[in-house]
C-alpha cells in the first residue's frame, strides 16, 4: 500500500508540474486530468470510495471534458500564444511565493490529522448522504442554488448578442 501511495504521489506531482510546464494547452489539460485522477486514487486508498468516484465524475469526467472540448474547438496553436512579459512572470512568481507562505502552516497542521492507517468504513455513501441531508442541508442547498445561478448567468451572457 505504501509503494502504491508513493507511485500515485509521484504521478500526481509530475502531472501537476506538467500542467504548468507544458507549452501546448491541450497537453496541460490532459496533465490536469491525470492529476485529478491521481487525487481520486488517493481518496480511494483512504477508503473514501464515494469521494473518489465523485471526484472522477465531476472533475475528470465533466469539467475537464468541457475544457478539452473548448480547447480543441478553438484550436489554439503554439505560435498564437503571446510571450509573457518579465513583469507578468515576476508578479506570478511573487503570487506563488505568497501562496506557499500561506500553505506551509496549513500543511504542518494537516499532516498531524492524516489517519495513519486507512480505517475500513462501511456504507460511507450512506453516511455522506445522511450528513448532506441533515446536518449540512443548508450549505448543500445553497451550493446547488449558486450553481443554478451560474448556469442561468452563463446562458444569459451567451445569448445576449442574439436579443433584438
Amino acid at each position, binding site marked *: 500500500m505504501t509503494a502504491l501511495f508513493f507511485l500515485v504521489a509521484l504521478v500526481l506531482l509530475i502531472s501537476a508540474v506538467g500542467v504548468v510546464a507544458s507549452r501546448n494547452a*491541450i*497537453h496541460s489539460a*490532459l496533465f490536469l*486530468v491525470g492529476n485529478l*485522477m491521481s487525487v481520486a486514487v488517493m481518496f480511494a486508498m483512504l*477508503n473514501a*470510495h*464515494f469521494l*473518489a*468516484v*465523485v471526484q*472522477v*465524475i465531476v472533475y*475528470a*469526467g*465533466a469539467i475537464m*471534458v*468541457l475544457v*478539452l*472540448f473548448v480547447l*480543441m*474547438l478553438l*484550436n489554439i496553436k503554439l505560435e498564437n500564444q503571446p510571450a509573457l512579459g518579465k513583469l507578468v512572470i515576476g508578479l506570478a512568481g511573487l503570487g506563488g511565493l505568497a501562496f506557499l507562505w500561506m500553505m506551509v502552516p496549513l500543511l504542518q497542521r494537516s499532516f498531524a490529522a492524516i489517519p495513519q492507517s486507512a480505517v475500513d*468504513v*462501511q*456504507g*460511507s*455513501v450512506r453516511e455522506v448522504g445522511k450528513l448532506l441531508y441533515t446536518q449540512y442541508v443548508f450549505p448543500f442547498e445553497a451550493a446547488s442554488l449558486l450553481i443554478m445561478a451560474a448556469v442561468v448567468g452563463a446562458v444569459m451572457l451567451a445569448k445576449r448578442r442574439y436579443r433584438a
Partner: protein
Amino acid sequence: MEIVILLIKVFVVFNVIMGLASICTWVERKGSALIQDRIGANRAGAFVETDVFLLKPVAFVVRWLGILGVINTLLCDAVKAIFKEDFVPEGTSQFMHCLAPFMAVLPVFVSFAILPLAPDFEVMGYHIRPQLATIDAGVLFLLAMGSIAVYGVALAGWTGNNKFSLLGGLRASAQMISYELAMGLSIVSVIVMYGTLDLFEMVKAQSSVWGIFQSPTAWLSFIILFIVGMAETKRGPFDLPESESELVAGYFTEYSGMKFLVFWLGEFAEIALFSAIIVLLFFGGWNIPFVQLPEGAWWAALIGHLVLMTKIMFFCILQIVIRWTLPRFRYDQLMNLGWKILLPIAMVNLMIVAALKVF
C-alpha cells in the same frame, strides 16, 4: 490463496469481456449480411481437408467455423490488422496518437470489474463472490468510468490532425456528454428503487420479481438506459461521430492496423457492458423466472452465469439488429432527443420513483 482466487477472477472477467466482444463481432459481421440479404464472410477455412485420420474431426469443425465466417471475422481480421502498416499522421504527438485507443478501451474494461457475473457460492470452504472489485460506491463507479470514456475519443479526433477526425471527435464528445445526464438520472432512479448502490444486492432483490416489474415506471428507466447505451457506444442510429458519408470514419479516420481494431474491440465491449448493466438492473441478472436455484452450490452459480450470459447476448444482438435497421439521426434531432426528450423524462421518472418510495 486470496491472491489465487483474485487471479482466477481476473482471468474469468477478462475472458467474459473478450468472449462477448468476439461473439458480438461475429454477430455484427454475419448478422449484418443476413439483414442486408448478403452471404457475408464464408471462405477462410471453409475448404480445409486432411488425409490424417485423427485430424478429420478437427478439419470438420474448422470447415464449419469457416463456412459460418468465424475464422474470417475473428482470426483472419486480427492477423491482418497486426501485420498492417501502423500509420501515424504527421504533425501530431505520436505518443498521444498511440495512447488514444487505449484510453477509449480502458474505462470499458475496468467497468466490468464491478459487475457480478454469477450468484455467490462456496467451494472448498471458500465463500466466493464472483465480482472482481466490491466497492462501496457500486453503480456510481460505472458512471465515473462512463464519464472518462470521452477522453479516448476526443484525443483520437484531435491527434488525427485533420478536419474530419476533429469534427468526429467533437461530435462524439458532445454526444457522450449530453447523453450521460439522462443515463445518470435513470441510474439514480434505479438506485432509489432498490435502495442500494451494490449491484450484487440489486440482483438479489430481483430473485422473485424482475426489476422492470418492481416499479410502475421502471420500464421508463430501462428504455432511457437502452437508448443512452446505444448513443454512448456511438452506434446504431447514433453513429454521427463516425458517419462515413460525411466524415470518412470520424474520430478514427487516421487509425490503421491494430489500433483501429482496439477501437472496435472497445466498441463491442461497450455494447456488452451496457447489455450487462441493463440485464443486471432490470432483467433479473442470473435469476430464472419461476425457478429458484439452490444457494451456494457451484453448479447453481454456473447455471446462473450461463443464464446471465444468455440474457446479455440477447441485448447485444438486439442492439446490433437496431444498428443495421434504423437510419442515422440528423444532428439536431440527436441533440433534441438527448436534451429535450430523454432528460426531462428521466427527471420526471426520478421524481415519480422517489415519491412512490416515500409515500
